[in-house]
């Protein structure tokens, strides 16, 4: 079907399609190629060089030295470990939580449904800076509300320095990341659950299936594409966690992540300040991990 018009198209017609097609593509392509594709290749190229901020001379090609160094870089490996901890914890919890919220609200009346959807989306809209600033105060070890609340509940006796304690700080960051991550999945799940074929659900109910069976046997397979999409975007977002780290701990208290490390290496590290090549090598490694994880998720989802 799709190929038929192509074959019957005359050469002149095809040429017109080409010209018109590219004319319409042109404005977008200029920006896409100029500010996404070119930097992408620059990133790969720079990761193979000793490019840095101060040298105006052309960088030297040094092969995979940056990547070899990365493997031996304790700080980078620590950041990688933290990044994986964040991804491994936040991706499943975000997915499960948003699926639960969505299935609890998707049948509600429209104004109530919108209200809930908006509220869970608010932390995203508020913006990472405003969110971080307020959470920093809430975590404060002198007059933060969280310490007061926990003391009031009798759970702790002394104020905890949440952001200053290695082992605790990263969990504080995961919590904030969680609140800013569930908004979009909830919106997606609500619409996916609303699109589930009702006749199948009713047929199953008539046959005596209980709620759990209806959910896992009928709804779950139908919302699988949405789940897959959510897994991928949540993974990408969790890998890119940066603003929270920069504004809350600056990588202290064992909360360093790869994205923060990239920024630190490129702009802040004192002894080898502005080591762009090395920072880009980290970026390439990060992109490879994301690509692998996305591919694995696709494979798993398809098998099921």
């Amino acid at each position, binding site marked *: 079907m799709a190929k038929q018009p192509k074959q019957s198209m005359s050469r002149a017609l095809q040429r017109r399609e080409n010209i018109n097609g590219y004319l*319409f593509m042109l404005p977008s392509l200029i920006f896409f190629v100029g500010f996404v594709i070119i930097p992408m290749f620059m990133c790969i190229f720079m990761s193979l060089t000793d490019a840095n901020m101060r040298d105006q001379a052309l960088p030297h090609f040094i092969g995979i030295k940056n990547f070899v160094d990365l493997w031996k870089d304790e700080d980078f490996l620590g950041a990688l470990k933290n990044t994986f901890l964040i991804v491994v914890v936040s991706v499943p919890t975000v997915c499960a939580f948003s699926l639960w919220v969505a299935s609890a609200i998707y049948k509600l009346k429209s104004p109530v449904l919108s209200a*809930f959807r908006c509220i869970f989306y608010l932390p995203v809209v508020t913006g990472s800076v405003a969110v971080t600033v*307020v959470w920093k105060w809430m975590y404060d070890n002198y007059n933060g509300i969280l310490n007061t609340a926990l003391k009031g509940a009798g759970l702790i006796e002394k104020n905890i320095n949440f952001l200053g304690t290695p082992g605790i700080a990263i969990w504080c960051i995961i919590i904030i990341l969680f609140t800013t991550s569930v908004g979009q999945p909830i919106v997606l799940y609500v619409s996916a659950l609303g699109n589930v074929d009702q006749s199948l659900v009713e047929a199953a109910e008539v046959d005596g299936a209980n709620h759990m069976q209806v959910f896992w046997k009928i709804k779950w397979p139908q919302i699988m594409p949405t789940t897959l999409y959510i897994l991928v975007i949540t993974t990408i977002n969790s890998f890119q966690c940066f603003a929270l780290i920069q504004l809350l701990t600056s990588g202290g208290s064992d909360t360093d992540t790869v994205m923060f490390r990239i920024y630190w290496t490129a702009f802040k590290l004192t002894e080898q300040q502005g080591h762009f090549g090395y920072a880009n090598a980290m970026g390439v490694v990060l992109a490879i991990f994301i*690509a692998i994880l996305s591919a694995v998720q696709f494979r798993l989802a398809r098998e099921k």
Partner: protein
Amino acid sequence: MKINSGRTKAYKVISIVILVILALLFLFPLYWIVTGAFKPAQDIYAQEPVWWPTEWVTKNFDALFKKRTAPLWELAVPFSSYFTADNSPVFFSVGPTVPAAFRWLVNTVFMAVVAMILTCITAAMAGYALAKKRFVGRTIIFSLIVCAMALPKQVILIPLLKEMAALKLINNIWSVIFPTVGWPFGVFLMKQFSESIPGEILEAARVDGSSELRTFTTIVVPIVKPGIGALAIFTFINSWNDYFMQLIMLSSNSNFTIALGIATLQAETSIDMGLLMAGAALASIPIIVVFLVFQKYFTQGITMGAVKG
């Protein structure tokens, strides 16, 4: 069925209660920003947190506005930075000096609006072409777009900075706008919407002798309008909140966005919580209002983007 429905009802009540509690928890940071912004100093530094301001004051905003100043606007001669020795632009019109926060808001609104308009125009055109024009190389371009979307956007920031330096656009609001427009999500979204344009209408327009551009503006745009609305609000919010890119690209006080300005103040005065809450309120309330007004389109945009994800 009867026995079951009693159980279901109990489950429903419990889940609504949990949902309401969760919703309150999600709302709390925002509540804390807004009340904190108006609390007097003794409330803010109280050992026991004060849940409701004992007195509503605007002192925090005064302190925020006094902190830094900047001209309200600076209009540069286009491309003038290419010709000056230190690459700084030549201004032909400079506004009155105001609290820097106002300038930051002006910058942020300008950035978000321009990025939104450019994205909508370019993406609507490209999406239409990808969906309806059978040009050579169309599949390759589309796969490139999908691949780019799956990549971490922040990873390309360093090369992007180098590129902007070469273009002499560094520390210029356009350096934040262009990459936002280039991000291919919009094209992807508009392609999904454009698929639904009936081919017969386009054919009929062509037979009637309508030019390509006229067909696009009079037939295509009205059909894909919901998509454009969704994309507009989506781009506006994302660009407003893209802190990392703003941090990398913008470096001088008068070019800051509101998010960047607040983050800088935070680094300077990390103990003056009242001032920071006032800043956070200023940075977040406008965008929250925009979101609440247009949230219908926004929801649609997120959902449509995932259809073929």
